């Protein structure tokens, strides 16, 4: 697969992904929507390798930079949609392979999904440069690339304590063991206080948000399915119990996504209810309906 020109990701897929798709035990999100109809181009990497690959990156922006460089895209032409597509595909694939993803990657996925859906919309007549969602992503990528380069330059400096060692020599005479006790006295209590402060300090734990396997595209399909033929449905009826909190968040993201794509409309935004009178019985919840004119 590597021989295939990188820029042909959009078209190369049909040929040898069928077998791979079938080999996946989890159902691959293969829908008519263009951004899930293709697979990343380095597909035959085992899941562990994906995880290791991801560890090489400093986060979603770094990963995006890699994709940009790998594909040699023309950023002057704001050729950013294919990168967003690839990114989303990788994330979706990793989720299906049960690879834990830091929350930051999911945030970026939501942002890119949003960007892509906005690009699908007919451009408003008064689109300014600042309004172009690609422009702001590009600006972030550039700024990150610059900072990354700054980091490399800092790393190239001769750093004291790593590349050079500052010299300090003692001044005082070496005291013999039987020297007079030092005049300065300290309260031994301060040692105990220091020890207490140190030991009661919370242990530093690296927080990694573990993504449950709730791919955004799955939820989009589910919502689409639920609102077929203009049916209206309450938000809680869209949820799958086993998907937990992440399911709620991703389902909500899916709704936002479909709203943007004008496939659905809101029947009730669930905001009118007085909080104090709100009981489980008569709670008003966000309710949506499929737009009949949507494809």
């Amino acid at each position, binding site marked *: 697969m590597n021989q295939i020109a990188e820029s042909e990701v959009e078209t190369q897929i049909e040929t040898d992904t069928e077998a791979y798709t079938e080999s996946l035990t989890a159902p691959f999100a293969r829908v008519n929507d263009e951004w899930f109809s293709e697979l990343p181009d380095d597909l035959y990497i085992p899941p562990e390798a994906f995880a290791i690959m991801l560890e090489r990156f400093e986060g979603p922006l770094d990963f995006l930079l890699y994709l940009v460089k790998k594909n040699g895209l023309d950023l002057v032409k704001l050729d950013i949609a294919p990168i967003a597509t690839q990114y989303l595909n990788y994330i979706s694939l990793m989720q299906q392979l049960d690879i834990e993803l830091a929350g930051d990657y999911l945030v970026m996925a939501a942002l890119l999904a949003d960007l892509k859906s906005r690009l699908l919309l007919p451009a408003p007549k008064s689109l300014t440069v600042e309004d172009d969602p690609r422009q702001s992503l590009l600006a972030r990528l550039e700024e990150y690339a610059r*900072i990354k380069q700054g980091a490399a330059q800092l790393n190239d400096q001769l750093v004291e304590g*790593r*590349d050079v*060692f500052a010299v300090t020599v003692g001044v005082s005479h070496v005291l013999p063991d039987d020297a007079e006790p030092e005049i300065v006295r300290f309260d031994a209590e301060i040692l105990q206080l220091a020890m207490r402060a140190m030991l009661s300090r919370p242990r530093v734990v690296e927080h990694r948000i573990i993504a449950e396997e709730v791919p955004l595209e799955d939820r989009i399909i589910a919502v689409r399915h639920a609102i077929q033929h203009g049916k209206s449905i309450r938000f809680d009826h869209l949820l799958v119990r086993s998907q937990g909190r992440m399911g709620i968040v991703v389902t909500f993201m899916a709704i936002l996504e479909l709203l943007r794509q004008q496939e659905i409309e809101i029947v009730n935004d669930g905001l009118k209810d007085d909080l104090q009178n709100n009981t489980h019985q008569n709670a008003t919840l966000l309710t949506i309906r499929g737009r009949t004119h949507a494809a």
Partner: protein
Amino acid sequence: MIDTAHALRILEAVLFASETPVSILVLRQAFEDEYDTQPDQKITNAQIESWLNQLSAKLIDSALELTKTASGYRIQVRPEYARIVNRLWPERPIRLSQALLETLSVIAYRQPVTRADIEQLRGVTVNSQILRTLFDRQWIAEDGFRPVAGRPALLVTTKHFLDAFGLQSLEQLPELQEMNDIIHDLSEKKSE
């Protein structure tokens, strides 16, 4: 007249004993303490700099060198001999992870910045451990806050940071690429 050999030894005593880089002001102070009987014989900065040059020359045949950083002069083991130190005390040399370098780079090049700025720029949550390490090394400090909700602290780099990276001022930070170069670099096709 001050004996040059003696002057160099005064510089040595002060520079070698100091835990931090020594400013020319402090060096002058050392001489004034020593020669306070002749107030007419003021020692100039130029005179001290000339002695520093001679001290530097005196060190040429050693594993040490005199270097100038933001807060003054410091004597250090030359990089080519640092390898011996690294090997002997493998736990000693500080390690700079990519995440730490990037965080530091944001603060150094974009200061003052808030924690949220760093997160926005790097696209990842700021690791508290990294900030703590940077504070612990005194490479960064808080300097006021941004007058918005939550009053987030503004982070800046310190003189210690410049000292550690062998810089005399922030102006000496290596320049960042121009926007156009970045786009060009990013858009360059992979050669394979």
